[in-house]
């Protein structure tokens, strides 16, 4: 991976907007690794990967996103787009970039931070005394060894003991949704692995896995954290997780719901937050 400079665009995708703290922590980690970060995501920067049934619309939206990143590269010197989402990364690498002229390179956040680990390591000064099972998938290895990258980063957190969980199919949990019982099987096998290794924490790598597993936080005395939460803990930074708390029965404060539109909250958000747990 060769970076074009220290000014980057952090492309966090669409579904990461469920996890605002993880976006902010990612930006903070990139900044502490020495990068000037401009964050971008949501529908205006959609990759198109979830709309295979509308290929023309998806292609148009993908072209618009590439054009915006080209503007950032040409006008603002942001010649690297840093991805979070494996779907976005694969779609950019396999379809968007080959199909559109690009003025930027693409790198995954775990590549950039792993390359900067000697820069980050001195900041990891707070012991995180956890036995952590890493929730893994095999899929994204076609593009980069993300499991190894995250394990390498977590190995620099003082006090943290890391255990490799079973490697599930797909590139993240959402990829298993179309296969009956596969999603529940991944949750069950991860949880069984955590118990077998006497772990007190399950660590997710991607947002869709975090979305699935967060509601299990506390079950069998096992907490659920994302890798950016654990790195932040090692830096002594508060790493809250609103989505996890909402899935466990909490709710956003009233002012936030009113700001977001109470009717839409009831229609679109509450059903997701109140859906059954992935394990009994």
């Amino acid at each position, binding site marked *: 991976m060769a970076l074009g400079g220290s000014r980057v665009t952090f492309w966090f995708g669409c579904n990461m907007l469920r996890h605002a703290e993880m976006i902010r922590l990612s930006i903070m980690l990139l900044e502490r690794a020495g990068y000037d970060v401009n964050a971008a995501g949501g529908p205006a920067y959609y990759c198109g990967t979830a709309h295979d049934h509308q290929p023309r619309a998806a292609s148009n939206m993908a072209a618009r996103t590439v054009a915006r990143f080209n503007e950032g590269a040409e006008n603002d010197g942001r010649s690297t787009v840093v991805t979070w989402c494996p779907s976005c990364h694969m779609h950019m690498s396999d379809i968007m970039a080959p199909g559109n002229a690009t003025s930027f390179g693409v790198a995954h956040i775990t590549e950039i931070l792993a390359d900067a680990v000697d820069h980050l390591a001195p900041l990891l000064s707070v012991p995180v005394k956890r036995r952590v099972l890493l929730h893994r998938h095999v*899929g994204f290895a076609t593009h980069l060894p993300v499991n190894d990258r995250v394990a390498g980063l977590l190995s620099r957190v003082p006090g943290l003991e890391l255990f490799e969980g079973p490697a599930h199919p797909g590139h993240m949990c959402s990829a298993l949704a179309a296969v009956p019982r596969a999603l529940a099987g991944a949750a069950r096998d991860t949880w069984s692995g955590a118990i077998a290794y006497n772990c007190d924490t399950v660590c997710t790598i991607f947002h869709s896995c975090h979305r699935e597993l967060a509601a299990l936080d506390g079950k069998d005395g096992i907490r659920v954290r994302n890798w950016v939460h654990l790195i932040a803990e090692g830096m002594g930074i508060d790493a809250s997780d609103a989505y996890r708390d909402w899935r466990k029965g909490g709710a956003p404060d009233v002012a936030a719901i009113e700001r977001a539109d109470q009717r839409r*909250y009831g229609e679109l*958000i509450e059903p997701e937050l109140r859906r059954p747990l992935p394990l009994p």
Partner: protein
Amino acid sequence: MGEPAPVETVAWVGACAKSGQCVAPCPERAAGLDAMLLVRIAKQRALNDTCQLPVKPDPTYFPRIKVFARLQLSDEELAEWL
């Protein structure tokens, strides 16, 4: 329009989870063929051309994401990031 594929092929294509386990063993890889990408193209054909896979549009996909954003992001973050 493509030709309809055998039922087994459509089931296989429809169940693809993007594990990528097909990429390295593909005998045509050296010639530049990406088997996982080929399966994805086949899935698009089955959805849109031969209509052998059911389309499951989710009109709430973007609205839900926008509500999550407004629940959590500051005005400044909304303006700068989205």
